[in-house]
């Protein structure tokens, strides 16, 4: 159970219907929410200009409308729980967009360690794109396609 582990498994996310199908990931970047408890928060919903994220009341689980979402990554930067990610399999290449708040600040071209939800090293990836939302860096990193639902943090090499 995630409350003794401290993280949620992909299988659990799938059972909750939170993982977009591979076809959608192949079409282009799409947001994945790993916010599975009912937190009194709707920052993601308020930040999405496309209306692609909806939270029931102030405290339901957020749901992403995979057709409306363009994978822009704004929700990744604003989420106070750092529980929003963007994944993509477009062009047969894996990409994950995730929040990063450490030093050194990351920039495109830098190589970083790829970490799983358990903190295991999954290899090395290259940073492709970075933007900042209130001091949180929103980092897109290239990863092997089979790891888009596994990589959830990066760390400087």
């Amino acid at each position, binding site marked *: 159970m995630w409350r*003794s582990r401290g*993280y949620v498994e992909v299988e659990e996310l799938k059972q909750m219907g939170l993982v977009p199908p591979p076809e959608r990931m192949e079409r282009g970047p799409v947001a994945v929410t*790993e916010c599975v408890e009912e937190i009194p928060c709707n920052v993601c919903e308020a930040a999405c200009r496309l209306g692609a994220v909806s939270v029931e009341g102030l405290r339901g689980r957020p749901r992403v409308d995979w057709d409306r979402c363009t994978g822009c990554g704004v929700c990744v930067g*604003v989420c106070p729980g750092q529980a929003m990610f963007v994944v993509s399999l477009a062009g047969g290449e894996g990409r994950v967009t995730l929040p990063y708040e*450490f*030093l050194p600040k990351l920039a495109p071209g830098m190589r970083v360690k790829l970490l799983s939800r358990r903190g295991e090293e999954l290899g090395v990836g290259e940073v492709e794109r970075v933007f900042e939302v209130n001091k949180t860096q929103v980092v897109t990193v290239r990863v092997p396609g089979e790891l888009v639902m596994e990589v959830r943090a990066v760390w400087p090499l």
Partner: protein
Amino acid sequence: MRIAEHPILEFKRENPHTFAFEGVEVEAFEGESLAAALWAKGVRGLRRVSWGVLGPFCMIGYCSGCLVEVDGRRTRACLEPSRPGLRVGRIGDYVPRLAAEQPGKAEELEVDVMVVGSGPAGLSAAIVSGESGLDVHVFERHFRPGGQLVKQTHKFFGSGELFGGLRGFQIAERLVSRAREVGVRIHTRAPVLGYFKEGFFAVSEGERLLLVKPRAVVVSTGAVERLLPFPGNYLPGVMGAGAAQTLMNEYGVKPGERAVVVGAGNVGLIVSYQLLQAGVRVLAVVEVMPEIGGWLVHAAKIRRLGVPILTRHTVVRAEGGEQLERVVVAAVDERMEPVPGTEKVFDADLLLLSVGLTPESRLLAQMGARMVWSPELGGYVPYRSEYMETSIPGVYVAGDASGIEEATTAILTGRVAGYSAAVRLLGPRRDLLEKREEALRLLREARRTPFSARVVRGLERVIVRVAQ
């Protein structure tokens, strides 16, 4: 050691100067507490007692681990701003002196609303009463306003109207500037000493004694971190999680190099993440319960960076000579007793306790408000109406002093208390009543989470319904 660069914070570090501690020069900057500058210098033990050396535990003026003598006066190093040339020393065998100074003349100050404490609850109460046109004075014993929001670097949950998405210190900045904008007067370094039955509060502000006569009072004095009993818990380097936040997030001083955190509630999880941001290694978070107490997302943030969370574990002792050197933890059985043979030893110079808070409600008790022991709310709290009025008419309570919750509910109970004070002084104006109802609605919404169930149970026993 000072943090040179931080991913979220910028430390101003203006007007470098020195003061002397036991004859040794200590570098400090404007706006730094003596305790922070001493910690940066590597001075850990500030007090020698018969059984050993003590260090600071709370860093916010409640424990006595940082008591020092400054220019012949006894004070807490965490509440004393550094100034050039101060002479600071250990207190030794302190004997209170007869009043050596000439008693200054007391000044009287009549105010509409007196707010005690300038955290999120107090400032929110002050803002809404100030917006209503009342003369509002906030009294804060620290030298800067904002309470414990100042040291929160993470983004807060919530909606836009409740500052959701902003970082704690940014919320503090907004509250302070809004309070000043609406004419609230914030007195810093102005501890409220007590209430006198003649109808005034004694406040010590700088060199003068103020006798404050308010028409309404909001007590928003916050909470104190709990200590855990285990051998070695007094060693310098064992401190409250909030104390480490004060050092690293408020002053940019690294609290240690290698840390163990006790308690996987939100405070423990958040402080662990902030330690990593400050460049401190987090060796483990230990939690006595079988499950993590805080939100999963806060746990996930540190798990993915490789920090282990040891559930069903507790700290059994801290070891070290003049300061913490090792932490011993062990698994616990069904009765929460440590299981022999399961000990793990961590070489750590920092052991943070995040095992809960206790409401700081002594001022209300001293005033004679009816108090009740509430395990759900964290300790002694005042009975109050749903409009936050205590058993003393015109005296309101808000924030953690009314029961341990978090910053959002502190802001909302502060608003309710502030509107209630305004209604008392200005009459039941419709706009005030409507805004108070709106704050109460948001409060109910914020408390509808599984984690609030316990708090809500506690509140059912301490809220006295009144006919309006």
